[in-house]
């Protein structure tokens, strides 16, 4: 019984890692603050679920299709909003999230506020583990490529990046689309784990939770995002299990801890100076050093 509980927490952790890492691509590496990441997760979850429930599409196919639809929405939302900057972009993404939630709440096919139930349980720790490895590996490949360097250049200085010939709008949209794709995968995994979804699972609070993981771990650091996801997944569970008294005050402590952690370490746990993920940084330093010597 206890073992099952631990496995469940670990599975949820895996899903949260995918979410945190994908938001980190948008907000951490590319520097575009998004307050609506859970929206993409929700689109992935609903698409995958509906495909399986109504059309009996096999799990893997509906998972990927859900992610693709989420990516498509990333594109649709990204094209108009990414012209906005900073806080305005954040608010526009928040607005789209709320609109999408409202649509999900009012559509017949999504079951409205009742949500969708009777989803088969497919997701388990192994599937999530494989997904996490694929996501992190592919993300690292992206980040050491030309595309990843462009993302970081945009975050560091958008004007300078543009002057260097980077089409900043296209790359920002690309970051959004890739992040949305991964979030869609996480959403599909989530639906097939809990076997029940409703629009409130993917609301503003979930977006904030994902953002907190990224910031807590350290923006623009994949290892940090993983650590942040681990902390914010395990911590509430831990607070729940310590004692019934604390369990009652769980969310109060959660809020308090966010404030304290920010005051003690505002740059996040793993971060500050390291702008690149570990492995690409070493690579890029060596490369430029080599070129300098020639």
């Amino acid at each position, binding site marked *: 019984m206890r073992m099952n509980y631990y496995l469940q927490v670990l599975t949820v952790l895996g899903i949260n890692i995918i979410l945190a890492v994908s938001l980190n691509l948008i907000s951490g590496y590319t520097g575009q*603050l998004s307050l609506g990441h859970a929206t993409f997760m929700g689109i992935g979850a609903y698409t995958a679920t509906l495909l399986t429930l109504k059309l009996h599409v096999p799990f893997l196919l509906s998972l990927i299709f859900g992610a693709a639809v989420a990516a498509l929405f990333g594109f649709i939302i990204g094209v*108009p*909003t990414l*012209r*906005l*900057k900073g*806080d*305005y972009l*954040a*608010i*526009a993404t*928040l*607005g*789209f999230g*709320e*609109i999408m939630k*409202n*649509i999900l*709440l*009012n559509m017949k096919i999504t079951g409205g506020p009742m949500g969708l139930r009777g989803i088969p349980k497919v997701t388990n720790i192994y599937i999530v583990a494989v997904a996490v490895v694929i996501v992190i590996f592919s993300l690292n490949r992206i980040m050491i490529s030309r595309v990843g360097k462009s993302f970081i250049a945009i975050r560091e200085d958008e*004007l*300078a990046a543009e002057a260097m010939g980077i089409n900043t709008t296209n790359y920002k949209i690309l970051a959004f689309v890739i992040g949305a794709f991964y979030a869609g995968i996480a959403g599909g995994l989530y639906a097939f784990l809990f076997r029940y979804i409703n629009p409130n699972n993917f609301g*503003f609070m979930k977006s*904030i939770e994902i*953002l*907190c993981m990224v*910031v*807590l771990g350290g*923006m623009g650091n994949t290892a940090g995002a993983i650590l942040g996801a681990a902390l914010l997944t395990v911590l509430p569970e831990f607070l729940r299990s310590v004692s019934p008294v604390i369990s*009652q*005050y769980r*969310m*109060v402590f*959660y*809020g*308090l*801890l*966010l*404030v304290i952690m*920010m*005051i003690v370490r*505002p*740059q996040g746990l793993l971060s500050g100076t390291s702008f690149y993920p570990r492995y690409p940084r070493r690579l890029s330093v060596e490369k430029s050093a080599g070129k300098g010597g020639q």
Partner: protein
Amino acid sequence: MFFQQFFAQVMNGLTLGSTYALIALGYTMVYGILELINFAHSEIYMTGAFVGLIMVTVYKLPFAAALLAGMAGSCILGVIIEKVAYRPLRKATRIAPLISAIGVSIFLQNAALLIFGPQARAFPANFNSVSLNFGLVQISSLQLLILVISVLLMVTLHFLIHKTKIGQAMRATAQDKETAQLMGIKIDRVISFTFAIGSALGGAAGVLVGVYFNSADPMMGFFPGLKGFVAAVLGGIGNIPGAMIGGLILGMAEVFGAVYMSQYKDAIAFAVLILILLFKPTGLMGQRIQEKV
């Protein structure tokens, strides 16, 4: 008949809009000075409503006293939040105070849930609301009261910012913190004062909305908070007349939109926001910021 209904909706829109404007002012003032989205503002609003509620139900005080108490409670809370959660982070990255604000918001919301329980409570106004008839326009005295109080507060704020010394200091700090400091302005005090005023307005909105809908609950701040913020962005964040206009536009859009598609009431606000941002990326009255290399 059509006109009567039309004007009734206009009055509803104005009433709702003026409360959004009051909330928006709190966001916009803080943003103007600190460039921080104060996510805890929705809980400051909720606290104002509950302090007012306690005054009305427990101490049986009249409405005016409840309003003042609500404003005072929110004011104190806002100043404390700034001191504890934002001031240590003033030199950190922009995102750190944002997360801190979210933490404060979660903390206050859940503390209120523990203290008051999740169920909504009735918020009696302690006076009889009558329907006033001005020919075509019909308005309840409660609506009129809310409108008058909101306008009065906004006029006072306008006077405070443009005609007093501390108002001048606030404008200077918003424009350039370092230079303001060099001119001998104690910016810590100015920031505290800004939080105090903004929060008091939020608290007033909390009490007014509580009385208007005759209910208060710990989660009541969430949507009005978001919409107040939307109103602030709509008008051009950091711009005080912009926040007032943004609030009114939002209230109107919501009331008239709800006539045609009531189930999408909460989405309307955001749709309006995105439309306006697309055509005027810094809001209606926001200034174009020159990009510098």
